[in-house]
């Protein structure tokens, strides 16, 4: 639990700073607007959390979001009647992409970095092969409501986010959560204690793919059809998860903290925008804060560094390099 504390502290500081610059933020609509814009990334981060905590990466989610939006536009093509079937299809497709990622990673034993990098290229290429280079068709108002509209005073995306948060928290408290963390912590030990490691990891990928589909529905709704809606989202999602104190390599970290990481990132973007930090310097500030936050918050991140810290080496004998692992 202690590990998750820094991110909430950082988030609180950022939110206060936003409120100082923009008092409207303290009113309900202002705050809800912030949650609304953070929702897609938060959902994506929740999905990425499952994969990372199981010890893997999912680099394909950015491409998947783009592909889903482009597919939705072409299939719906302005026909309100197609909205619901297409939404169902998008969710299935997201889960299916996750299934393939998971199966290739676990059964074919391809490192997930490469599996999902390959998937990223395949999705980006295939979807535009299908549409002839640029998006076509149009989304309907019904489809866009989820990312753009409100239910009473509350934006739909906030409600969807709440539902997702509730679902993932319950999931992590259930047996699956313990199994997942055990898998990421030490797959060998987990397997010995009866965990079906490949199945667990595959489910993590499926959840990530499905979360990308939800993210695509919200983003497509929020901003409309675009050829680059998902660009760079994979790195943002991973950054958010890691900001939340979740350890790359698996086995540690909480999903709520990962979602808080996404909010932190979004708060940072808002703050930079509010304080008029020049667009060009924005990425530099992000980079510094990313490194600083991880360095301060998670002192035991890289496993090998942690081990290296334990002892001071004095001798210089050359080890036998054939002790390769794997």
């Amino acid at each position, binding site marked *: 639990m202690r590990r998750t504390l820094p991110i909430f502290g950082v988030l609180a500081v950022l939110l206060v700073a936003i409120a100082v610059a923009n008092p409207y933020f303290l009113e309900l609509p202002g705050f809800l607007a912030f949650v609304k814009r953070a929702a897609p990334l938060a959902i994506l981060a929740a999905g990425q959390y499952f994969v990372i905590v199981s010890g893997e990466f999912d680099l394909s989610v950015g491409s998947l979001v783009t592909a889903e939006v482009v597919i939705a536009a072409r299939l719906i093509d302005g026909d309100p009647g197609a909205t619901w079937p297409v939404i169902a299809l998008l969710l299935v497709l997201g889960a299916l992409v996750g299934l393939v990622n998971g199966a290739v990673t676990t059964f074919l034993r391809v490192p997930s970095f490469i599996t999902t990098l390959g998937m990223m290229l395949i999705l980006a290429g295939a979807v535009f092969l299908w549409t002839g280079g640029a998006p076509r068709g149009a989304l309907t108002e019904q489809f866009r409501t989820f990312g753009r509209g409100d239910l009473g005073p509350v934006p739909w995306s906030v409600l969807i986010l709440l539902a997702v948060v509730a679902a993932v928290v319950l999931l992590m408290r259930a047996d699956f959560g313990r199994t997942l963390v055990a898998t990421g912590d030490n797959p060998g030990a987990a397997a010995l204690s009866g965990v079906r490691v490949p199945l667990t990891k595959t489910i993590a990928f499926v959840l990530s793919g499905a979360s990308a589909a939800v993210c695509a529905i919200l983003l497509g709704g929020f901003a409309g059809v675009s050829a680059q809606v998902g660009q760079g989202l994979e790195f943002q999602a991973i950054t958010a998860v890691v900001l939340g104190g979740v350890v790359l390599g698996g086995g540690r970290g909480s999903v709520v903290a990962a979602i808080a990481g996404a909010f932190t990132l979004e708060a940072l973007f808002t703050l930079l925008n509010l304080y008029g930090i020049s667009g*060009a310097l924005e990425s530099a500030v992000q980079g510094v804060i990313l490194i600083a936050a991880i360095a301060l918050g998670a002192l035991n991140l890289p496993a090998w560094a942690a081990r290296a810290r334990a002892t001071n080496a004095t001798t210089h004998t050359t080890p036998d390099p054939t002790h390769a692992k794997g």
Partner: protein
Amino acid sequence: MSLTPRRALAGAVLATLLPLTACSSDLPEGPAASGGATSQGSGDGKKKTGDQSKFFVQADYDAQLAMRAKQPTGPADKPWEQAIDPQPVDTAAYKKTGQYHLCFSNAATDNPWRQVGWKTMQAEVALHEEIAEFTVLDAEGKDDKQISDIAELSAKGCDALIVSPNTTATLTPAVKGACPKVPVIVFDRGVQTDCPVTFIKPIGGYAFGADAAEFLIDEVKPGGKVLALRILPGVDVLETRWSAAEIAFDKSELDVVGVEFTDGDAAKTKVVVSDYIQRFGKIDGVWMDAGATSVAAVEAFEDAGVPVPPINGEDQQDFLQKWKDADLTAVAPTYPTYQWRTPVIAALKILKGESVPKVWNLPQPKVTQESLGDYLKPGMPPLHYALCGCEAMPGYPQKWGGK
């Protein structure tokens, strides 16, 4: 094969000595590329919009702004064949008979603008039976690949080589290398050499930026707050658009409250605009350096429940449609995709020995309230560009994704 270090070392030494004796170079003759354009800031007066880009060239700026008012020569219904201030060059030296083999080094096809242009160019090629072969290499946005592509194409026996450079300064050596072997036609971005037979471009980025800025200066009351949205820094063709707008805004009574980069991302655009609406209560005008995200900007006002102020987009279908549906006060300067037809036409002229302009300045119309109805064609995909000049081509509109 096993290599001892010593043997490998000897090989390495040999490899470094060899060039002295057996050197051959693909580097073109002549003085090195003059890097960087001359920079001339526009006065030292206090500026509201920050420093002028170091790529600003006063002479180009003046020429482009003047060109907007000039009458182009050529058929009025075919703007892709028109030229402003043409200085014809003789091409008798390149005259050939028979079938032609055209080659094209394309910078990329990675955005909707280039997609529309590329489809238009393919359709243009299909119109001409005398083109027997059309070889195309796509550099995928990589300068280094395009340099190799150009070298590869110039060795393929092309009769003419069309180049759409990925960046300006950096493709100059490669184009210089190709010029002696084959007549070269450059379009869209230029290169820093005059060795190509012709360079085809619409009037240019300064005119685009100025068209949009002048519209806002006319439509927004003095003292009004203007937000400027740019895609990315560091892209020369976009820098010129902003440079011209900066000059116009600095001379005006408008208050430029922010200059933001959107990465061409619709969601980010919407967020940025929403933040500005919250911060300033009211934004009186929006200037954009490209149209891809202008609909997102419009929606940010709609979602905030405030009237959409005067705004500029581009000739993209979704913006034109929004303009009509929401009855916006808007203008759409263009960077017409019909310029992709012209290089093919120019190549054929050159190979037939007909003269072409040294710099082929194509007209660059803007879509206004009056002409909106002419340019908005129903059934086209949201990211289609209206000024494709492709309406009468075979396969329209299906080939362009329309219905």
